[in-house]
């Protein structure tokens, strides 16, 4: 090259120089893929026809086995002409066309560069054997007068070769060959040989080939006294080849075939100046071993032995290829085990390995095939698929050599598997024809039309892997779970983390993983994008089905929201330090904060005004705590329509690493950036700082008080605080609950929970008020114990205060009553569906007394534990009501008998609500689901009869009393704990005003709520059950109604029994029934309105509820 001349490197088909790291390589033989000219041999035009299939499969790089002219005594690895195409497969023009077509589809192409040896038919060898000894022509190969040189080199093809030397009668010398005797090794001690090899390489790279697989590279150079493998001179040759590639070309790749231990393969990467890729041979047999032994150790062991490789390099990993499943890189014991485990028939064995395809090796078990492919796609390296394995093709162990895994691709169930239209006798190899593996059973066409086929599964998995660069480029870390049948590892790249968990066992397995380093993150199952529970500090439990696997993307727990930047430097918020609230609450800073608050509030889960347009958001009151580090702010939000709301917002400022962490992991909690002399920081939700949370707890524990503009914030603990707190030495690290909607909760250790009420209303919060009353003034213990609260008291001492936060003891439980009851119902339906429905013998208009007395025994048998639970719940509900009515001297809790005036008002209110519900039903009649129309029509026709129920209220002489009630009572508000129930959440209907929620009412309103909840549970569980067993739909409905009526009756019986002669409920059963029916109808109509507006598919539940009211 002349001085100053610029060498233009020839680009490859892709611009990313590291493309091979993200590739999915598909290995195929042109001969075996598709025959276009019906001569029984696959060819390039045939391969071109199938490129759309390969593109659709999603592979990105095609690796072609040798397609050069050859006597074909070693499947084409015996090349007789390096720069041409075997005429059976087409012409060099056909190859060029194939290359262009592949590139047009975004596919790269890798071909073989077999440089260790040629065929003995190659002109170089024919010339060499005829040339005089010592001549340059003769020196193209390795000759010797004796067969005793290089004696330390092992024989590789032990089944066919006895020596690495073969006598050539024409040359009158021995020639060297590491493989078959018809494959003489080239002599790289002759510089001309390297020149020729490089010129062959350039020939193909100039055509546009993207990658070269260097075959058998450990054996290029021989030296006496060595095993003639991996010699330093060999590495020198590879560097020269690589340099020639780098000097002239861009975006190309060399893949080394070196069947060696990882530490011996490592030098083939050099310092990134030898091969770009190398096969990881020892990993492959160990994957099979781990699977059969149901133990991850073989895999973790070999990965531990695998050294790091240069950044630009990559391992090539595979499950099967065109050769035998090689067992060279395992110990003798392991080899014996593998033979026993995977090659029962000796014909399955060849050389030092097993000549079988993937699916037969795994006994055609789909789960095993999927599991191994999931490992292939998620282990570090570039996965290489062998043609046909994507459809689970079989093999033919009765064919010689390794030809049993090289049979024609099975495209269709037509003649010759759609591979060729030639006479079957003319095929280069018989197609697989046995009943299990034959092409009629396993072929591409059939699997393309089967949505659940292995082919479609593979296509989806390939597409998924391609979405995540972390699989090709990320780091790997194994997680040492106790259960060794489970393999768990974490892949990580630039903050992207994927947790892979695989069950190597044929049975379901549990595992608990230490993911505490990722506490707060949410694992999202990657195939279905399903969120799993957030990671905590405790071991993370998972259960995997037989051969199951999970890919979980670890996502930040908080949605990452970019904090809007102020648009100009003059609009930045400047503060002196983290306590400088003046600059944020007044003047220019105050205005900026007000500008930012609406957007911030819209992002918060607890903000209830998302459907309304915010006009303004202003800090109307504040108090400082934690020595001024946390600001408790009351923000008044004005909307374009409707009343304003006030929200409680603790705020904090953080700088340095704390600010960075918040931006990275909890961006949603950040209001905006702030700037101090120490640099940039963030203004954020104060609860994100542990110290602020602890300060709130301390405020309760120590009864602290802080001033605000118009009042005082007071902490106050209950007399049970110490009992709830337990031993302070146990640690009280705050942990935020992320799933909550309208409030914010913080756990302190596993004993206490603090609930911060976000939406503030004047007056005591009923949850706090009732929790405190029950805990401190009554003996009722089936509630979460009240530990204390933080209250705001306005100056002047009137009733203008509000509850800011409440502390409770944590109740250990088995889930809420709703989930528990659904599980019980599932068992109930399972046992009932085949049984005969018992005769009830009750008339449609049976009285409550009759219903209570007539619970059929068989219903008790089937409903089992849910009947007992209903009884317990009835008892606890009554005890709750008795406790709430136990203090006649407390003005907020004193019971008062319902008089005539109360009943008239109640009737009017219920009639008004019912009328609205009936009108809504009528207006929506046309939109109802088909299965609800009839019931809706019936109800509308009975409108006046139903309304009459309310008029009977005013005729009651004894209607019981008004007391404080739960207010929003249903199965979701109770916890199942130790065979009993604990009642929670006394906040009342969130949509109602505080005054409405604190108003005294008949306790039967709660009872009606629970009765309706039973109805919902019965229907919901039935829908769930029917989804699995649609054929049983007809039988289930009467059983559902039986369960509902029996459980309701049992609940009411226990409630009345516990209530005894208390005057808070009507004394007569008739009076009780009138009240209950009125409240149940009211509740069902409320549900009806709700479902019409939100879930029309569920409208059948309240409709049926109204038709079958107790």
């Amino acid at each position, binding site marked *: 090259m002349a001085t100053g001349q610029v060498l233009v490197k020839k680009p490859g088909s892709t611009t990313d120089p590291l493309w091979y790291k993200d590739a999915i390589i598909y290995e195929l033989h042109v001969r075996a893929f598709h025959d276009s000219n019906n001569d029984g041999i696959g060819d390039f035009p045939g391969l071109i026809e199938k490129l759309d299939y390969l593109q659709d499969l999603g592979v990105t790089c095609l690796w072609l086995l040798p397609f050069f002219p050859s006597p074909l005594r070693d499947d084409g690895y015996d090349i007789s002409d390096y720069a041409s195409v075997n005429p059976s497969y087409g012409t060099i023009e056909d190859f060029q066309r194939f290359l262009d077509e592949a590139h047009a589809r975004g596919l790269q192409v890798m071909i073989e560069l077999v440089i260790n040896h040629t065929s003995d038919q190659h002109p170089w060898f024919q010339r060499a054997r005829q040339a005089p000894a010592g001549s340059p022509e003769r020196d193209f190969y390795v000759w010797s007068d004796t067969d005793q040189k290089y004696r330390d080199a092992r024989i590789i093809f032990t089944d066919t070769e006895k020596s690495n030397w073969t006598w050539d009668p024409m040359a009158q010398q021995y020639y060297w060959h590491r493989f078959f005797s018809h494959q003489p090794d080239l002599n790289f001690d002759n510089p001309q040989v390297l020149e020729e090899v490089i010129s062959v390489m350039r020939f193909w790279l100039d055509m546009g080939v993207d990658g070269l697989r260097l075959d058998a590279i450990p054996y290029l150079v021989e030296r006496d006294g060595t095993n003639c493998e991996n010699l330093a001179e060999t590495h020198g040759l590879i560097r020269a080849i690589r340099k020639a590639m780098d000097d002239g070309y861009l975006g190309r790749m060399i893949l080394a075939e070196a069947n060696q231990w990882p530490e011996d393969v490592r030098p083939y990467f050099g310092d990134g100046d030898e091969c770009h890729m190398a096969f990881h041979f020892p990993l492959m047999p160990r994957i099979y071993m781990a699977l059969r032994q149901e133990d991850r150790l073989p895999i973790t062991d070999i990965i531990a032995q695998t050294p790091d490789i240069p950044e630009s390099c990559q391992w090539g990993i595979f499950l099967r290829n065109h050769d035998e499943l090689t067992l060279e890189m395992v110990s003798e014991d392991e080899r014996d085990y593998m033979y026993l485990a995977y090659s029962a028939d000796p014909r399955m064995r060849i050389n030092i390995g097993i000549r079988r395809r993937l699916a037969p090796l795994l006994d055609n078990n789909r789960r095993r095939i999927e599991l191994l492919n999931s490992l292939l796609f998620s282990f570090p390296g570039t996965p290489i698929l062998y043609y046909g394995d994507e459809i689970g093709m079989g093999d033919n162990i009765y064919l010689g050599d390794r030809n049993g895994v090289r049979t024609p691709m099975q495209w269709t169930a037509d003649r010759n598997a759609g591979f060729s239209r030639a006479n079957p006798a003319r095929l280069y190899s018989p197609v697989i024809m046995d009943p299990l593996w034959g092409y009629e059973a396993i072929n591409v066409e059939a699997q393309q039309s089967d949505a659940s086929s292995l082919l479609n599964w593979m296509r989806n998995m390939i597409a998924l892997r391609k979405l995540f660069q972390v699989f090709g480029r990320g780091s790997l870390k194994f997680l040492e779970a106790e259960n060794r049948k489970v393999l768990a590892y974490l892949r990580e790249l630039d903050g992207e983390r994927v947790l892979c968990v695989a069950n190597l066992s044929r049975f379901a397995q549990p595992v608990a993983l230490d993911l505490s380093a990722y506490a707060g993150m949410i694992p999202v199952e990657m*195939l279905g994008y399903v969120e799993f529970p957030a990671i905590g500090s405790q071991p993370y439990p998972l259960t995997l089905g037989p051969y199951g696997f999970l890919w979980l993307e670890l996502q930040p727990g908080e949605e990452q929201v970019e904090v809007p930047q102020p648009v100009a430097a003059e609009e930045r918020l400047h503060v002196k330090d983290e306590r400088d609230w003046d600059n944020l609450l007044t003047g220019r800073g105050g205005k900026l904060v007000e500008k930012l608050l609406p957007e911030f509030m819209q992002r918060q889960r607890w903000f209830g005004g998302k459907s309304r*347009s915010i006009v303004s958001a202003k800090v109307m009151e504040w108090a400082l705590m934690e020595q001024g580090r946390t600001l408790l702010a009351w923000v008044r939000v004005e909307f374009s329509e409707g009343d304003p709301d006030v929200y409680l917002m603790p705020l904090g400022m953080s700088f340095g690493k704390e600010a960075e962490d918040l931006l990275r992991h909890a961006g949603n909690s950040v209001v905006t950036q702030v700037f101090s002399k120490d640099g940039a920081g963030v203004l954020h939700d104060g609860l994100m700082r542990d110290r602020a949370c602890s300060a709130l707890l301390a405020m309760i524990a120590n009864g602290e008080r802080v001033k605000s503009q118009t009042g005082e914030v007071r902490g106050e603990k209950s007399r049970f605080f110490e009992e709830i707190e337990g031993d302070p030495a146990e640690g009280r690290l705050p942990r935020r609950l992320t799933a909550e909607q309208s409030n914010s909760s913080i756990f302190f250790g596993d004993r206490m929970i603090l609930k911060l009420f976000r939406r503030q209303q004047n007056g005591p919060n009923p949850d706090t008020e009732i929790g405190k009353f029950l805990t401190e003034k009554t003996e009722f213990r089936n509630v979460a114990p009240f530990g204390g609260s933080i209250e705001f008291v306005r100056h002047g001492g009137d009733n203008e205060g509000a509850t800011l936060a409440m502390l409770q003891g944590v109740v250990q439980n088995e889930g809420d009553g709703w989930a528990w009851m659904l599980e019980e119902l599932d068992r109930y339906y399972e046992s009932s569906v085949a049984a005969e429905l018992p005769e009830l013998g009750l008339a449609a208009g049976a009285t409550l007394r009759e219903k209570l007395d007539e619970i059929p025994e068989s219903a008790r048998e089937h409903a089992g534990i849910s009947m007992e639970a209903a009884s317990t719940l009835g008892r606890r509900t009554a005890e709750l009501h008795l406790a709430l009515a136990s203090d006649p001297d407390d003005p907020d809790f004193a019971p008062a008998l319902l008089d005539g005036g109360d009943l008239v008002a109640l009737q009017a209110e219920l009639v008004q609500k019912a009328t609205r519900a009936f009108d809504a039903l009528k207006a929506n009649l046309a*939109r109802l689901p088909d299965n609800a129309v009839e019931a809706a029509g019936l109800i509308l026709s009975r409108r006046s009869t139903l309304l009459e129920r309310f008029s009977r209220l005013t005729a009651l002489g004894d209607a019981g009393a008004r007391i404080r009630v739960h207010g929003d009572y249903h199965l979701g508000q109770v916890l199942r704990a130790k065979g009993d129930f604990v009642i929670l959440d006394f906040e009342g209907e969130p949509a109602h005003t505080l005054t409405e929620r604190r108003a005294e009412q008949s306790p039967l309103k709660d009872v009606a709520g629970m009765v309706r909840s039973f109805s919902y549970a019965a229907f919901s569980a039935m829908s769930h059950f029917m989804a699995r067993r649609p054929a049983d739909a007809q039988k289930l409905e009467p059983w559902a109604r039986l369960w509902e009526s029996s459980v309701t009756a049992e609940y009411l019986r226990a409630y009345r029994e516990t209530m005894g002669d208390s005057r808070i409920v009507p004394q007569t059963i008739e009076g009780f029934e009138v009240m209950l029916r009125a409240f149940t109808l009211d509740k069902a109509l409320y549900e009806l309105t709700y479902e019409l507006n939100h879930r029309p598919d569920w409208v059948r539940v309240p409709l049926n509820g109204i038709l079958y009211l107790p």
Partner: protein
Amino acid sequence: MPATDVAAGTKMTTEQNSAIELLIGVTGDVNPVDLRSRAAAAVAQSSLPVRASGQVVVAWPGVEGAGVESGNGSAPTLIPYRPAATNEAGPWAQISAAQRGILTLAAEVKAAACIVIGPDLKALRADTVHALGAPVLDRQCDLVMPIYALERYEGLVNTAILMPLARALYCKRVQMPLALDFAASASYAERIGAKANRGLLWPAIAAAQETMQVGQVHLPVRHQTPMEGLDLTAVLTQIVGALFLEVERTAATWQRGRSAQPTPVWGQPAQMHESEETIEVRPMIESFQLASRNLDELWQLVLPPVTLLELRHLARCEPEQFKMADRIWARIVYDFALAHRLRSISRVHLMGALTPLYLGWVASYVQEASMMTAEQVVQRQEQLARAFEENKPYLVSRWRWPDRFNP
């Protein structure tokens, strides 16, 4: 002038003016003399910190024989650009090719900022040039997208599909992801202009791909839509089909984002133009109802049973009760995007099958919006965009595991 001469001219310009501050490019045929003088006036009156002569270059598509005309006096330098090659037909494809050509030229001359102006030159005014150019020249963002002042029922393809889909997927709250006018920084022009042509240019999506800062400005400009006169299916094919292609191409990126992030907005929204024209929804509903009878088989190849059931219910509704829920619409769009990728049916038929569904949405929207104030209309659009965001996991899961056996 041959292409090489343009290149040489460009090079010369670059060398002579090492600090070109602003390149203004126009994406259609214009009179260069008129263009030059209007650009000079707009820049001079814009109060941008640039001199029309020397620091400003005006780019136009050029004609045979056109060359570089250096600036003199107050006149900026005029350079012809070469639109990027495109195989796509349709007005937006041509506009995108021109936009790419302008960005490429801006990168070549190393302009600090580049303002792309639609062919009608309506945005070539002092106030709009200032609004678009200032945030880029102030280095506050790499891309400034316009928010045009529209009539109540204008730009409904954008309202129904482009905006909510692009916003949910690419996590940038950009009101108009396909715009005739926008401004870009030097680094944007360098990175995006150099990219091979891949269909329409979605400036904000390209910025999101490169994690560049995006801002928006309210522009008191009203353009004639480039798709005027085309039938609806052709519009959907050319615009929505192009967006679906972009979605397919960028799948690895958009599946990472979880929530749409706000972008800074400059300027005050203009008063919504109120047209006297009323929209007759009945024909749209009838078109939807007819399609629900005739296209049921096609829809079954694209939509899951639960959506089909909802559509059946909807087809039975009286016109005054006809309301397509946002959730259903969002999922329909997502299912069509997926079917476009999977080629479940030919893409031509697919977009044809989307047309009556879109009309159904328009009918539903028009009935609602007709009773709303301008502010409520904005809120309503926001509500739709949030429905797309909330249902994004639905698309991700369907995309990752496109099993026909789904609810």
